[in-house]
Each structure stands twice: as C-alpha cells, then as structure tokens.
C-alpha cells in the first residue's frame, strides 16, 4: 500500500480537516494534562457503568455526529444550489452523501435516542440502574468505536461512496475497491453489536426492574415505546449483522453472495438490507413517538388520551415493521402479486400511526396548553410529520412509486419523517430532560428562536423537493443542467438547509449561554412533570437514583401524588444500604480491541485483525473469571447525599 492510498490527498478541504483533527487532538491532550484531568476522565467517564453518564456520552457523541452529518448536508446543498456547479466533484459528492446518510441514521439518530432512553427509562420505572450495567458500558463503547472507525475514513483510506444502502455490485471489490466500503461494513458491524446489546439490556430492564406496583399498563409511554423499540432492535439487528458479514466475506474472502461472478445475486443484498432497514425506521421513530406522548401530556397538563390504543398501535407497528420491507424496491420486478401485497401492508401501517396522531391531538383537547420549547417541537412534529406520513402512503402505492422511486420526492418524504419525527424528538427530549441531566434548563427564549429558524428552514429546504421529484430530479446526482429547470427550487432548498445549520449553531450557543447564566434548579421537578423521573428530590438524581424505591399505585403516579398533596418525604429510617455495580475499564479496553480488529480488516491487514479479535476474546474471558458483586452505599452516605436531617 502506498502513502497516497493510505492518506487521502489532493483536496484542500481534506488537508484542512487533517489539520483541524490534529489540532483538536493536541488541544484535548494538552487540556487533560495541564489540568490533571486524566484520572477524572478515567474514573468518572471511561469506566463508568452509570446509565445517566453513559446516556450523556451517547448524546454528546450524537450531537457531534449531527454536526458532522450536517456539514455533509450543507456541502451537498451548496453543490446543488446552482446548475453545473463546480464546488465538489462527483467522487467527493458521492462520498459525502454516503457518509451523510450512514452517520445520520446509525451514528446520530439511534445513539441520540438510545442516549435519552439511557438517561430516562431507568428513572421512569423507578430503578437504580439497568439490568446489566456492565453490558451497557460495552454497548456505548462499541457504538462509539464503530462511529470513530467510520469517521476516520475521510482522512485515512477514503470514505465509502456507494450510498448508505451500499447496493451490490456497485459496492463490490470490482467497482468500489479499497478501504472505503470496508469502513462502512466494519464500522456498522461494530456499532451494531452495541445496539443489539442495548436492545437486550433495556428489554430486560423494563420487564424486570420496574418499581413495585408499576404494572406493564402503568408504565409511562416513553418507557413503553422504548420497550417496543428494543423488541424491534433484537430481531432486526441480527439481520444487518448477517448482511454486513456476507458482504464482508464477498469483499475480503472471495465468496459470491452478491457479486457479479459465481452466480451471486445483487438483489439479495437489497432484500436483506431492507429486511433490517425497514424495522430500523421504526427503531428511530417509536422512541420519538414516546417522547412526544410524554411532552404533550405534561404541557397539556392532562392524562394521555387513549393510553391503551397508543400501546396497541405501537405493538401493531412493531409487528408490521417486519412485513413491509419490499416497498423499498417495488421496481425490482418481483411481480404484481408481491407488489400488491406489500403495497397494502405498507399502507396499513399508516393506520396505527394515524390513530396516534389523533390521540395526541385529543390529549391537548380540554387541556391547558403551555407553549414551552419542548411543546413547540411537539406541535411542530404533528404538523410536519403528517406531511411525511401522507407522502409515505403515496409512496406505498407501488404503481405510483415507479415514478417517485429514486427521486427527490422520496428524499423529501423520508426527511419529513426522520427530521420532523426523530430529530424534532431529539431536540424536544433533550430540552425536556436537560434539567435532569445537567441541573438547569436551556434558555427558553433562545430555544424558541432555534425552533422557528429550524422549522421554517426545514420546510423551505424539503418542501420544494417534492416538486423537484415530480419534475424528474433523481436523488444522488451531483449536479444538473440549466435546461432541466431545477435551479430555482434547488436554490430555495439550499437556503432552507443553511437556515437549519444556523438553527443548530444557535442551539449550541444556547447550551453555552445556559451553562453560564441559567438559573440552577432546586428541585427535581423542573416542568411540573408526571412521571417518576421528576420525583427525585435533587435536580440531578444521585448515582443510585432513588434512595428509597417508590411504590407505584397508578399511571402518572407522581402527578397524582402531587394533585392529592401526598408527595412522600424521604425519612432517614427508610434508608437501607444500596447495592451498586462497580465501575469497570474492561468495556473501554474491549472496544479498543474492536477498533484494532476493525481497522485491520478495513485495510486487510490480517495480522492486525487477528490480534484485535484475540484481544476482544481475551477481555471476554477475563470478564468471565471476574467475580465482582459490586458494593454497598452506606446509609450515612445516602443521608449525606440526600441532605436530610436525622
């Protein structure tokens, strides 16, 4: 391998990135060393098994990835603003839209939601931690390492450029040689391990760790949505694992699953990819639904409308999500029967979704609606998501889909679903639970600016794309001709894109501003909430969450206690020693070995890959022999932490 093949060269933008990466690294190392923060970093973060800290690390990584994916998006929009633009060349553009899609779905949307689930769900169900705190750390670190492995591709070895769907045979060795596509395969594979473990962990947590009295049908809606999401993760992610492994075999070990040679079948890749890919859509949308349910109920000061219907519709969606994958390739000629069946199942999935929309609307009905920022995002969600929903039904009509497929109509549709659904939810959830994580609220005035600039920018960006699609503009073209007539709408779209970028910057400024100036919360109940996470006496729950595990008597237990004026005060005699799991550095070390193994595979340096894999198994076996039963927090320490007088 030559140097010009190892390092990406020849592009000033890449050199700029190289320099900034090196400077950032040096800056971080300098800071850590100068302020003697290494030990703090190791003890408090790298070895932590606390679900709240892991959740915060997930969210921080996701925000960084949102920035990376957003920059990709703006580069694309800049290139497309005018016809025949020379800003990016084709190859560079292809790399950028590939990384944009992959990062936004796998390394932004999912970790953001999983981060919020990590922070909130154990608190909502009145648990002290998750079922497997150690595994939770493994999940986070494998996700993080997978994301890092994928991200270094743009300076080392080159980024993948076959689209986030990586259709074969384009993604094969013959047509996309080199490490780029391998980064995609290995980065996703390693991160996928973490996601699967999260699925099992939270499923068991929700099923078995609930506070006494919290029956399944007394669980908060966000917990319910997380439960259903975990079920989908558990059964969908193994499909991705296999699909990625098979393509890895094709690229590295000469098998013929999807190749042109040896009677391989490229269609099968599309089939397997979407067998996972469609449930994946619900993995990133259901937690969003759950968050909106919580937020709308809280700020309408009212019980959720149709609680059971909400749950059944989610269960229905979970089952359906495995029965609609073919709508991603209606145009592959599988025949009229197949297309008809999958058209109908796909449209049918709109029914439970529609039911949820009406239930949210009627949660506000006869309520007392407060326009806080989380609530604004939720209202924005309803209004915008419906557009994504109805165009989804249009796309489900296979005969019409032959005209929408691979066009900007589709691009617009899924951005309406994923931004108005998932991203709005991430923002809403982040703002809503921010005081739980950091002890103060984000500034509401600036927050409203973020909302309006982002939402208007979002519509300006994506609404015109429906018309571009109907005017025949295919997705993934890096430029277009003057005569096509697509110029003006693309310019409008680009302006909208930059508005969203500005909104993101205002959001980051808001984080800084609020960190400096926001009033610190004195109670744990920043929004007059309804569910258990707001019942902790301190703004930020202590590491053991609850000094005394609450006993739940109904839905919205905490809210009802407050209404009845019967919020229990913690008494010293109620406190018993609390058992907690110990920190462990093993997950971080195991993930580092994963990185070594992944990097070795990417460059096909098998000695390195084998070394990494042995390391991974080594840490597994080490853990197997480790009998660490955790430790007890003494009554005195709890009393000290809770600041109660004896």
């Amino acid at each position, binding site marked *: 391998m030559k140097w010009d093949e190892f390092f990406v060269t020849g592009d000033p933008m890449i050199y700029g990135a190289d320099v900034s990466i090196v400077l950032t690294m040096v800056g971080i190392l300098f800071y850590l060393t100068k302020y003697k923060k290494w030990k703090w970093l190791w003890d408090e973060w790298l070895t932590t098994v606390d679900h709240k800290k892991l959740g915060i690390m997930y969210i921080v990584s996701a925000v960084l990835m949102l920035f990376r994916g957003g920059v990709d998006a703006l580069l694309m929009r800049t290139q497309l603003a005018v016809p025949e633009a020379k800003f990016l060349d084709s190859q560079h553009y292809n790399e950028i839209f590939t990384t944009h899609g992959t990062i936004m779905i796998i390394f932004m949307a999912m970790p953001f939601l999983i981060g919020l689930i990590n922070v909130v769900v154990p608190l909502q169900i009145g648990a002290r931690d998750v079922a497997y705190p150690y595994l939770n750390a493994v999940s986070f670190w494998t996700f993080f390492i997978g994301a890092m492995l994928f991200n270094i591709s743009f300076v080392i070895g080159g980024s993948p450029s076959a689209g986030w769907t990586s259709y074969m045979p384009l993604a094969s060795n013959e047509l*996309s040689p080199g490490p780029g596509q391998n980064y995609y395969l290995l980065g996703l594979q390693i991160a996928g391990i973490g996601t699967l473990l999260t699925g099992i962990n939270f499923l068991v947590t929700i099923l078995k760790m609930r506070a006494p009295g919290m029956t399944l049908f007394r669980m908060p809606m966000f917990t319910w949505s997380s439960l259903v999401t975990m079920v989908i993760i558990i059964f969908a992610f193994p499909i991705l694992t296999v699909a990625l492994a098979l393509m890895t075999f094709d690229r590295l070990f000469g098998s013929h699953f999807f190749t042109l040679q040896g009677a391989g079948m490229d269609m099968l890749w599309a089939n397997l990819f979407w067998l996972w890919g469609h449930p994946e859509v619900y993995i990133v949308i259901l937690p969003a639904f759950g968050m909106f349910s919580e937020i709308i109920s809280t700020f309408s000061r009212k019980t959720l409308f149709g609680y059971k*219907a909400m749950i059944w519709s989610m269960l229905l969606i979970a089952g359906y999500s495995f029965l609609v994958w073919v709508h991603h390739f209606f145009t592959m000629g599988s025949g009229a029967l197949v297309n008809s069946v999958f058209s109908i199942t796909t449209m049918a999935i709109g029914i439970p979704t529609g039911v949820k929309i009406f239930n949210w609307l009627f949660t506000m009905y006869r309520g007392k*609606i407060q326009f806080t920022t989380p609530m604004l995002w939720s209202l924005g969600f309803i*209004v915008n998501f419906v557009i994504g929903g109805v165009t989804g039904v249009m796309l489900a009509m296979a*005969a019409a889909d032959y005209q929408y497929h691979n066009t900007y109509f589709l691009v617009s549709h899924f951005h309406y679903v994923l931004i108005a659904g998932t991203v709005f939810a991430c923002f809403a959830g982040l703002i809503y639970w921010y005081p739980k994580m950091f002890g103060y609220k984000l500034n509401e005035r600036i927050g409203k600016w973020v909302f309006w600039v982002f939402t208007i920018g979002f519509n300006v960006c994506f609404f015109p794309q429906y018309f571009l699609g109907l005017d*025949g503009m295919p997705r993934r073209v890096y430029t277009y001709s003057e005569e096509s007539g697509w110029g003006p709408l693309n310019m409008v779209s680009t302006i909208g894109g930059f508005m969203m970028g500005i909104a993101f910057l205002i959001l980051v400024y808001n984080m800084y501003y609020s960190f400096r100036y926001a009033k610190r919360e004195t109670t744990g109940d920043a929004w007059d909430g309804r569910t258990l996470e707001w019942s902790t006496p301190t703004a930020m729950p202590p590491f053991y969450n609850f000094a005394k595990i609450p006993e739940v008597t109904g839905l919205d237990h905490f809210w009802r206690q407050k209404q009845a004026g019967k919020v229990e005060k913690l008494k010293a005699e109620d406190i018993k020693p609390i058992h907690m799991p110990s920190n462990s550095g093993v997950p971080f070390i195991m993930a580092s070995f994963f990185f070594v193994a992944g990097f070795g595979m990417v460059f096909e340096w098998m000695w390195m890959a084998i070394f990494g894999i042995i390391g991974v198994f080594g840490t597994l076996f080490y853990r197997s022999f480790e009998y660490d039963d955790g430790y007890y927090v003494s009554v005195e320490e709890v009393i000290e932490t809770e600041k109660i007088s004896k």
Partner: protein
Amino acid sequence: MRRLKPFFTFGLLMAVFMLSGCSDMIVLDPKGPVGAEQRDLIMYSIWFMLFILLVVYALTAFIVYKYRDRKNHKGYDPDNEGSHLLETIWWIIPIIIVIALSIPTVKSIYSLEGPPEESKDQKPLVIHATSVNWKWVFSYPEQDIETVNYLHIPEDRPVLFKLTSADSMASFWVPQLGGQKYAMAGMETELYLQADEQGTYEGRNSNFTGEGFTNHTFDVMAMSDAEFEKWASETKADAPELSKGQYDKLMLPGHVKQMTFSSTHLDWVDHAKNPEYALDARERLGYEEKLPHSKAGKEEKKKREEEMKKLEESESHGDSHAH
C-alpha cells in the same frame, strides 16, 4: 396561537402552490398511456392526502387555539383519558382510506405488467436495454440494429423493454412515458412503455451507479411508424457493424456520445444470462478499478477516458469492420 399562525399560512401556501404547479412537472405531464395511468393514480391519492392534511390541521389549529393556557381558562379536564367512540372513528376512517387507495393501486399494478389497454392488439416492439457504467446500449433484435445512449421508437405502439445490466444495478426511467424499473446483471426485467406524441423525451438511469451516475442518460425519440421503419432500415444499411472488440471497450466505465451499429451484441452475449461478461472484458483490456483518490486511480481514469475517445472515433470512421 398567534405564533403558530405564520406556520399554518406557510403550509396552506405550499398546498396551493402544489396544486397550481402540477401541470408543469414532467411526471404529471405524461406523453403516453403508462405515464397517464400513473399520473391519474397520483392525482387520485393527492386529493385524499390533502383531505387528511386539512382535517389534521384544522383540528390542531382549533384545539391549540381553544385550549391554550390563559386566564379564565375554560373546559380544563385533566383526567379525560379517552373515548371509545372517538377512537373507533379514527381507527375506522384510516382503514376506509387505505381500502379506497388499495383498490386502484392493485388494479394499476396488474395493468402495468402488460402492454397498455388501448394498444393491446398491437405487437409490441421489443428493445433490449442494457446498462453499463455509465451508458445505455439499446438492441433491436428484429431490426438487428444497436444504438448507444439514444433510441428511436414508433408512436402509438407499445414498446417492450427487456432490461438488464452489465455491471451496477441501474434503473431505466423515462419520466414522461412512465415509471421506472431496475436493470440488473444476471436478471431480465420487463417494462412496457408507449409514446402517444412525437417528440424527444429524456430518459436516464435513476439508481446510483457511482462516479458517472449523473450523466447516465439517454434520449428517446418518438416518431411516426413510417419514419421509424425508414430509420431502422437506413441504419441497418449504413451504420457500421458492432465488433466484439468495440463492444468490449464499451464495457469500460465511462461516457460515450451517441453511437449506432448495424448489428447487436445479443449475437454473442446476453448480460441477463452472463453477468460476468463486463468484468471479463475489463480484464482482457487490462483495466482495473483503483482507489479514486490515489495517483494510480487518477491515471487509470485518464486512460479510460482516452480509450472512450478512441472508441467514439472508431465508430465514426467505420473501421470497426477491420476488427
């Protein structure tokens, strides 16, 4: 509510814009029965969707306005948990809408599998369309001619496209004539299209195929039956024959201008049956895909482009016979 107003206004404006702009968009301005059927289905569904949007927006506006938190708030009922009647209504209405959409959808899906109803009794013209990065090769087996990156078709007669690919998965799409279908190596998919008006329509590959994807396009010229027959026989008589050597060069990734030949590659290869042909041809020509950002990759690309130029020249000089 005042704060939400611009938002709804914006939405409404967009909806109006959507309706008024319809006829300008090529998918909604079809020039053949296949496209027309799809346009009708699209318009049918759009009305339903606008109805749904209207209902949701009206309800949202009403509820958000009426129940906003304000002084002397009325009608607050914090324990209102649901209503069987209401919930039944919004389970049933979507089900009815889905049924209303399913019936015409399934009908269209089935009808699009065959030639258009109006020209069922005509024998369709068969054209093999083969995608190879990043060009389209069209073979007319009956006329025994082959074109590259353009094709002529007679109007008012169904055309049966037999689609396949020599390498990447491509999608054959002529928006004004009708929807697309994938062209895949080792597979053959069929697509019926028909033009009811003479003219030139833009066609393209709409499925991402890598570096040259953006210009992976072709022109469809629809003409009268007589003109078509004349063109076909003239081409058969005047155009050079396609040699295997030339065809191998066509297998290299790259763009070429429009080309015409008086024989077809179907004589020796059908990519639907032999998906390895293009890779073998590249190997024979000593061409290998390299890392795009490396020096070797850039040299390789230059080499390919030169090869393509030579190929275009060889066609215009007619020296293909010499091969």
